[in-house]
């Protein structure tokens, strides 16, 4: 079952992935000069580079005031078509692939090439959390004034006939896989439609490791592969054959 789901996942010609993210989060803040060094090393691999100031605002509702704390710059790198990206801030480094998703091998290859050098430039910091998130968007044709998302998603809220048909939904669940030391956040919701005549639903899978987290590059890569296996299992369990047909 395990290998079948992985093989099957690679067969999709039109996967519904809108955004894939790999994040490495650090236990202590990375100094700005280290972040700049990582950005400089990565810069020639991306077409564009930008800097955004990051801030944390603490709102005091009782006194109607707010504290503004400057967290320093986030260095963002992106391909000219905005499909590939990398962002470095004080707390984490993130690799992003947006649709069209070309497959795990391409995404992993970029990550595997850039991550070891980036971590070195950041001073080989202690890693607090590794996350792999895939945001899928399920577009469902509206027929007879209904978008039957249940024809595409196996995971859903069973609320009985009383609340049928619903006008919107949202669910969120977490689970810990103790045997493989991974956790997941899976969520789905009705979202803003983009295509005339279609309803839209998110199916969002975030797999992460936040205990006994590896800090060495090769161990991180192995862990990310394990995460991807679990992500694929969750995705395959969550979608129907009807959905598979649409994406193949």
């Amino acid at each position: 079952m395990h290998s079948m789901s992985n093989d099957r996942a690679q067969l999709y010609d039109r996967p519904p992935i809108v955004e894939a993210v790999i994040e490495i989060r650090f236990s202590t803040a990375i100094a700005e000069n280290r972040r700049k060094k990582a950005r400089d090393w990565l810069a020639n691999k991306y077409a564009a580079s930008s800097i955004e100031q990051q801030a944390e605002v603490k709102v005091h509702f009782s006194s109607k005031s707010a504290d503004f704390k400057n967290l320093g710059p986030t260095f963002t790198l992106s391909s000219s078509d905005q499909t590939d990206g990398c962002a470095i801030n004080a707390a984490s480094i993130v690799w992003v692939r947006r649709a069209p998703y070309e497959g795990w091998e391409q995404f992993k290859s970029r990550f595997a090439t850039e991550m070891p050098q980036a971590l070195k430039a950041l001073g080989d910091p202690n890693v607090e959390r590794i996350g792999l998130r895939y945001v899928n968007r399920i577009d469902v044709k509206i027929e007879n004034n209904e978008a039957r998302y249940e024809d595409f998603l196996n995971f859903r809220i069973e609320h009985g006939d009383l609340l049928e048909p619903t006008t919107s939904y949202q669910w969120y669940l977490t689970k810990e896989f103790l045997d493989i030391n991974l956790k997941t956040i899976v969520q789905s919701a009705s979202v803003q439609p983009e295509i005339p005549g279609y309803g839209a639903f998110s199916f969002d899978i975030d797999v992460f490791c936040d205990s006994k987290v590896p800090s060495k590059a090769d161990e991180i890569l192995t862990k990310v592969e394990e995460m991807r296996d679990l992500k694929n299992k969750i995705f395959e369990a969550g979608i129907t054959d009807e959905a598979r047909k649409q994406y193949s």
Partner: protein
Amino acid sequence: MQPLPIFEPSGVTMPERVQPISASMTASSIRALQMYSFRSEGGGPFQDYLVAQPRAEKVIEEQLFDALAEAKIWTSRVAMHLDSETRKRLFRQLDVLHNAEDWDQRDKTVNLESYQSLVRAIIHHSIDCRPSLALMPSGNLLAQWRDGNDKLTVEFVPGNRLRWLVQSHTEEGPERASGTSPLERLRTVLAPYGAERWFDGR
């Protein structure tokens, strides 16, 4: 089952990139990409927002980059409905239209809602023929299809509406027809002028 009204043109469009739909969703990996984090008094998650630096403070190159990035990132939401060549061509055209060297400070960058209307029309009407594009002073996109000496020009207006103009040549002389329509009716309103000659077949 979930009933949904047929697609309603709306002036309101979601911010770009797939955004968390609730505060709880921000616990995921994507959080690191968000620029500003708002926290409640107790320190727990309150709500996260993407806050753009005000346009006026940005130089031309940054404004052009932001406008292009916004359009391209939005495209990722519908990329699975676009063939690769159409998507690449649209991006090339957007890049050309926003060339910094030719840019006049008075020009407006592409209106995202106008771009969305164009892409939605391409997907909804299965438009195979790729138009030439121009940018209007308002930031709306103007698309033009040609069939010999005949031309179809469409301005994509925010809110999934469009203004169209057909210029054709008949044996009796030149003919012009124009109108304003909802995006979904484009093929229907152009049927008398042969919509398929503009849209079908590359």
